[in-house]
């Protein structure tokens, strides 16, 4: 009987004491949509913004149709002939299957000035994601310079997650957004 009491006490302690939980206890949502607001405060380029209480609109209202139709999937842009270079997740080295696209591009942009735009998928809006886009652009620049293109003819920028060509939540879509676009004037 005594033994049963001890065992019961131990089990009760284990059940009720537990260990310190690392998970947050609450992830509550206060009703912030108290809140439709339209605003006008003193400032130069003022606009107002309103939001419907329950309406949730897609994060970005549209993808970049021009880039979608042209070169974002690694296929040839009919208008300019240049091709986007695609990258793996969190990588900025040029994949083996993109080497041919770089060569094709180098022939098309020779003796022209152009811009390389690095783009990223939606995983992170922080500076690191922007830097990743830039390192991708820089990798393409180095590859083009190796193909004989003058470094002085190339400018670069990173647009981070801000210029998606695809908005679906799929691996294929995210892969299309991890790219460098060549922009001819």
């Amino acid at each position, binding site marked *: 009987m005594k033994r049963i009491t*001890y065992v019961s006490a*131990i089990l009760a*302690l284990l059940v009720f*004491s*537990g*260990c*310190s939980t*690392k998970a*947050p*206890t*609450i*992830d*509550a*949502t*206060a*009703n*912030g*949509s*108290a*809140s*439709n*607001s*339209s*605003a*006008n*405060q003193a*400032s130069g*380029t*003022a*606009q107002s*913004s309103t*939001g419907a209480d329950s309406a*949730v*609109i*897609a*994060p*970005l*209202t*549209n993808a*970049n149709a021009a880039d979608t139709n042209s070169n974002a999937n690694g296929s040839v842009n009919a208008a300019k002939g240049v091709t986007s270079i695609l990258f793996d997740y*969190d990588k900025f080295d040029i994949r083996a299957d993109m080497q041919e696209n770089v060569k094709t591009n180098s022939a098309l942009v020779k003796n022209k000035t152009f811009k390389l735009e690095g783009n990223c998928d939606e*995983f992170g*809006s*922080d*500076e*690191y994601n*922007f*830097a990743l886009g830039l*390192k991708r*652009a820089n990798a393409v620049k180095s590859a083009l310079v190796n193909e004989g293109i003058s470094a002085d003819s190339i*400018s*670069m*920028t*990173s*647009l981070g997650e*801000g*210029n*998606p*060509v695809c908005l679906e*939540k799929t691996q294929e879509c995210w892969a299309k957004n991890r790219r460098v676009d060549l922009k001819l004037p």
Partner: protein
Amino acid sequence: MRYWILFILSIITLWGADTTLEVTKTVGVLPKFVIEDGSTFSGAETQKFHKMLSADMKVISLFDVDDSYATQSFESLQPSLTHKEAGYILRYRLLDDGAGGFKAEVKLLQNSLELFNKTYLLKQREMLVFLSHSIAYDINIKMGGAPLEWMKRKVLLVRLSSARHSEIVAADYTLAYQKVILSGGMYGFAKWANREQTDFYYTSLSDFKPTIYKGNLASGKKHAITSSDGMAVCSDVSEDGSKLLLTLAPGGQPDIYLYDLVINEKKRITDYSGIDVNGQFMGSDTIAFVSNRFGNPNIFSKKINSTAITQLVYEGKNNSSFTTYRNLLVYKTRDGNGFNLRLASLNSSGSRQLTSSGDNDYPRFSYDGEAILHIKQEGSRSLVGIIRVGINKSFTFPLHVGRIQSLDW
């Protein structure tokens, strides 16, 4: 047998202990709290104000807030018929001041006794939610709650509206107030330039080269600070506002620079061939930053005038954004559930998970370290998250249009 019990008790106690980071406060049953409209006119605005106050009172977390709307004479010491069970009554009376603003009279009642009363004047009625924040702030002080200075501050955010288009928006922490202060281009990384929130820095990606500008909220005037091929971001502002930590990338190489606004000179302070970004001041002579020097993005620190690097985080993957306050560090990390935020102490090992759902990014401590602002993505929805570390509670407020790229407060 009793030794076994003692042994097991010791194991349980030691296992459960988290001497550095246990921040949970045990709270008993909270008193019921109601909000009543005592305005002489009752319309959309007074009812909207009721919702705003309800949201603020929930964030205060001192009460069990019943957010049902009811009216009652402002002078009465009794609750309305529908609020008979209330422990506390917050009653307000909004009055049109005839000049585009409001006069608000507020009182807090308990057991027919008046605990608090105050009159507020609001010049711009579109900023009604800030009046609600001020009232909540005062009630919190009256009731002895944890500091809530952050509640009254403006949040500066960049909202991506469509591909290649974004806007800089000044908002309150609930996003009830939103005012577009810059639009028509592509912008990123907006950051307050001073504690008074009169000026701000931002990156324009519409220029030939990414350019950092400083803008003034009241006048709308701006001037360029610096630009760089590839990338230019103002990551942090020193406490006195005289120095900036920038990420610049001349030649395509992102590194951290210290920019002295007094002499308008910049100095490179990291030179790794991979990615060094997101410098944050830690006192006057040290910075923390994100680098991929060990393969994945992680958090490091260094003295400004030294080349020695110290790794600050030893767990998690893709630790690509962070914020610090004194000896506390909150960082983003990738786990099985997506991207979550963790809190660590710089003086000890171990960490504590702060979020458990969605993809969480861009943490920013408030000036007093009491709360952490961050971006939360839930599917296609973008939200502002507030974590009150001291009481272990978090709240989210959805953005109805667009996606949040960055925020600051």
